[in-house]
Each structure stands twice: as C-alpha cells, then as structure tokens.
C-alpha cells in the first residue's frame, strides 16, 4: 500500500444557492481543487452524494459530473452512505491511490437540497432511517436524535444547556468561516428560546438544509513530494456499520460505528486519539457532537456534555472540535460534508485556516456518519 497525500482542496460558499444547479455546484468546487493541486491528468473520480435522485431527480451523477467537468472518459464512481457519503467517497479515493490502482483521484461530495420543498427534503433525509420500522411510524431525524438525547440526559445527566453550548461553540467558530452558511454567533439563551422541533431539540440544535459541494485531489505521497507541494497525508482510514434502526442498538446513545471506525483509522496511522490537534466531527444535531467525542475516546462515556461545558472542545481548548463551524454553522449539504471536513483539516495542517487556525496543528481527524450512526468513516491526516 502506498502513502496517500491530499494535494488540492476546493470549496465554494454554502447556503441556499438558488441560482446554481446540481452540476454547477459540483464543478465549481472540483475546479478549485484541481487548480489548487495544479494537476493536469485525473485518473479517477469518486463522488459522494446521498440522494440526487430524490432531491433533483438525477441519478448517474458520476458520469454527469465527469462530463461537465470536461473530463470524460475518466472512470467516475458515485457512492452513498446517507450523511457519510462524502467520507465514504474520500475512503474509496484513498483506497484507489493506496492500492496503486489510480494515481490522481478527484474526490467530491455534493448535495443540492433546495430544489424540493421542505416536506420532500424531510422525506429524502428520512430514507436514511429504517423505512418500515421507523419512517412508517412518522419518525424524523430530529426525533431519532431527540430520543438519543433523552436517553443520554436520563442516564448520564447531560443537560439541556450543555446541548446548547455545542451550538454556541460551533457558531462562534463558524463566524470566522467565510464559506459558512451561517457565519454568525448565537447564545445559549437564543438556542433555548428557539422553536421546538422534537422535544428537547430546538431548531438551533439542528443542522440546516444546505446546497454545497467540496472537493479534494489525492495522489501518492511521493508524487506530492516531487511536486514540492506541502504534503498532508491521509495516515489512516476506518469505516464501520451499525444497525440502521436505533431500537436495535444495545446502547441507545452510544455511537459504536464511530468508535470502531476511529479505532481502525488510528491503528492504521499508528497514533492515539490524544495525538490529534483538531477534530472535524458530524454535529448533525448538538447531541450528536456530545456522543461523538465520547465514542472517539476524547472523554469517558457520559462525560461529553460536561466536556463541552468545560470548554475542552472550544477553539482554544485541549481538543478543538469543529473549528470550521461544524455542520451547525457551516451547513450540511449531506453528501458534501465528509469531504468538506477533509478540506478544513488539510487547510489547518497547511497553516492556511486564517482566523480559525489551530496553532501548530500537525495532525487532524475527521469523523463523518450516516443516519443515527448506521455508518461511520474516520480519517486521520498528518502534515509532514
């Protein structure tokens, strides 16, 4: 297996992009990544997208984007794992380069969510849950995560305020991200007064509906060194599944797939979790971030709420989580998120993160997951 480096990153501003179509949004980010990498030839494309079919009536997007990027007949593969489609695309690209199958691989993640109304969007997102045993009964994603929150609060004493603090921290970080959908700050009070979506989660506990894409270029680390690019390697990668239905889990508020994927990624990178300087994690809901930092091993199970309250995961804290603003402030175009997390970490490890820069960051971890944790992909990045 060869060492894999990220030599180009690209991401445009995220939000409700009324004037841009699915294909335009993808191509714009992909071009930024290609130009950043300065490569001519691309050997393969991997696209992560949860549901262009339900959101835009468009499947076959590997080929569509290859064509519109002016790159046909390049092999193009679209992968899906609900909200971790982006992370999964990155892993597939990593495998292609590491195995020697391809040299230069473009990995892109995309979701165009605003071409359908709110109801259709909710339906499309709901397909990540168990259709016959969760969706059939009227469950939504906020409801599933709300139930995880109720369990976490009941068993571990996590408070409503601690959940709010996750949103406050991520907006604080996001206010320094020019590409974020919501680059403004919020207060605990604002979160607690925002409208209820599924008790106890309020609208400011939930990541938004967003249009956006992100892209990276991967190549063998040797090629990156020869090109005299700052070498940021993907040092490790892990992936795991768990039950799709929340009720089938032994522990209703523990993210086992994240735990296993992180263990595998760190083992491959020969690192421990404490070696990481920053983390980009999947805060689809505030409670998710709390459960994720426990599953990653940053804190003990049940201590996630307290960790946020104590500032452990703030920008200047011991474990900076979501310096980019996370899904909450940056936005969550579903398939794009996993790749955008990689973009942030790479920029941080290059020292190019501007006001968001985590000082001296050398190693970063991204964690992306699907549904209520039915799938998870973790990558470990290291700057040489």
């Amino acid at each position: 297996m060869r060492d894999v480096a990220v030599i180009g990153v690209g991401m445009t501003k995220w939000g409700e992009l009324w004037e841009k179509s699915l294909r335009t949004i993808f191509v714009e980010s992909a071009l930024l990544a290609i130009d950043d990498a300065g490569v001519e030839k691309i050997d393969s494309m991997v696209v992560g997208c949860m549901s262009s079919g339900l959101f835009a009536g468009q499947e076959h997007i590997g080929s569509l984007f290859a064509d519109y990027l002016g790159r046909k007949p390049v092999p193009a593969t679209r992968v899906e794992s609900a909200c971790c489609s982006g992370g999964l695309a990155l892993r597939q690209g990593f495998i292609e380069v590491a195995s020697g199958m391809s040299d230069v691989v473009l990995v892109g993640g995309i979701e165009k969510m605003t071409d359908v109304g709110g109801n259709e969007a909710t339906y499309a997102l709901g397909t990540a849950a168990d259709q016959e045993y969760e969706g059939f009964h009227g469950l939504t994603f906020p409801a599933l995560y709300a139930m995880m929150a109720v369990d976490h609060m009941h068993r571990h004493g996590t408070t409503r305020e601690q959940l709010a603090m996750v949103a406050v921290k991520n907006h604080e970080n996001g206010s320094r991200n020019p590409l974020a959908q919501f680059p403004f700050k919020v207060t605990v009070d604002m979160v607690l007064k925002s409208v209820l979506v599924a008790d106890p989660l309020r609208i400011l506990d939930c990541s938004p509906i967003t249009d956006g894409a992100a892209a990276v270029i991967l190549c063998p680390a040797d090629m990156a060194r020869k090109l005299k690019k700052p070498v940021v390697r993907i040092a490790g990668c892990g992936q795991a599944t768990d039950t799709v239905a929340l009720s089938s889990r032994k522990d209703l508020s523990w993210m086992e797939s994240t735990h296993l994927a992180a263990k595998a990624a760190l083992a491959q990178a020969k690192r421990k979790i404490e070696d990481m300087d920053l983390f980009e994690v999947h805060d689809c809901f505030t409670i998710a971030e709390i459960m994720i930092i426990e599953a990653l091993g940053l804190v003990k199970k049940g201590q996630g709420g307290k960790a946020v309250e104590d500032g452990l995961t703030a920008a200047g804290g011991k474990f900076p989580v979501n310096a980019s603003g996370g899904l909450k402030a940056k936005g969550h175009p579903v398939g794009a998120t996993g790749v955008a997390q990689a973009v942030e970490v790479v920029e941080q490890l290059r020292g190019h993160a501007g006001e968001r820069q985590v000082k001296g960051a050398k190693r970063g971890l991204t964690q992306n997951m699907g549904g209520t944790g039915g799938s998870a992909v973790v990558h470990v990045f290291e700057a040489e």
Partner: protein
Amino acid sequence: MQSPARSWREIPQRYRLEAAKCAKCGFICFPPRLVCPQCGAREFGPHKLAESGKILTYTVIRVAPQPFCDQSPYAVGIAELDDGVKLTAQIVDCDPAALKVGLRVRIEFRKVSEEGEPGVIYYGYKLVPE
C-alpha cells in the same frame, strides 16, 4: 403512489407482531430476518411479541413529515417490551406531561397513515399508557 404490496407484506408484523426466535441462541428478531444478528445462525422459530412493556426513550415531534402533518404534535418512543424486544412506535392517548422513561405502556391497534383520501389505509401498532 407506492404499491400496496409494500405495506401488505408487513401485515404479519404490523397487525400481529409476528417475530422470529433464533433456534440456536434464542435471540428474538423483529421483524424476522434470514440471519441471526447475534450468532449468525439461519434457523428460526415463531415468536409473538409481548403486548406490554416500558418506555426507554421518547420525544414529541412538532415538525412532521408529510402524511403526519395534521397529527403534529405527536409523541414517539422506543419501548422495551416484557420479552426484551425493543420497539419503535407512536405513543398515543397520553398527556405529553405524563411521558417519561419507565412509563408502562401496552400495544393497541391503530391507523398509522394513509395514501391520501383515496388511497390505502395503513394500520399497525401504537403504544398507549397501561
């Protein structure tokens, strides 16, 4: 419009709570499956779920997906039935203030949704306080 086949196929589970018990390790699968998730065995015997249990977790949905919009707000939860099986369903006939972890509930036959006024009606199980 989805084919009526999709909901008809789930009738034994939705109307009669028919589950499957692993012949090797006794794990109860609801819905029934081909492979036991606990031991990997592929042989099962019949098992009908217990009709009552207790609430493990719950929420009240206020922003509802399409067929459920008119029912908002409605409560949903995961119950642990008296035979150990965990079930996700709506919780009805319950004052929202009375919802709590540990609440005893039993299963009742209710209408879950329908394909609009002209469409098929989907019946199934819901949870009511005991």
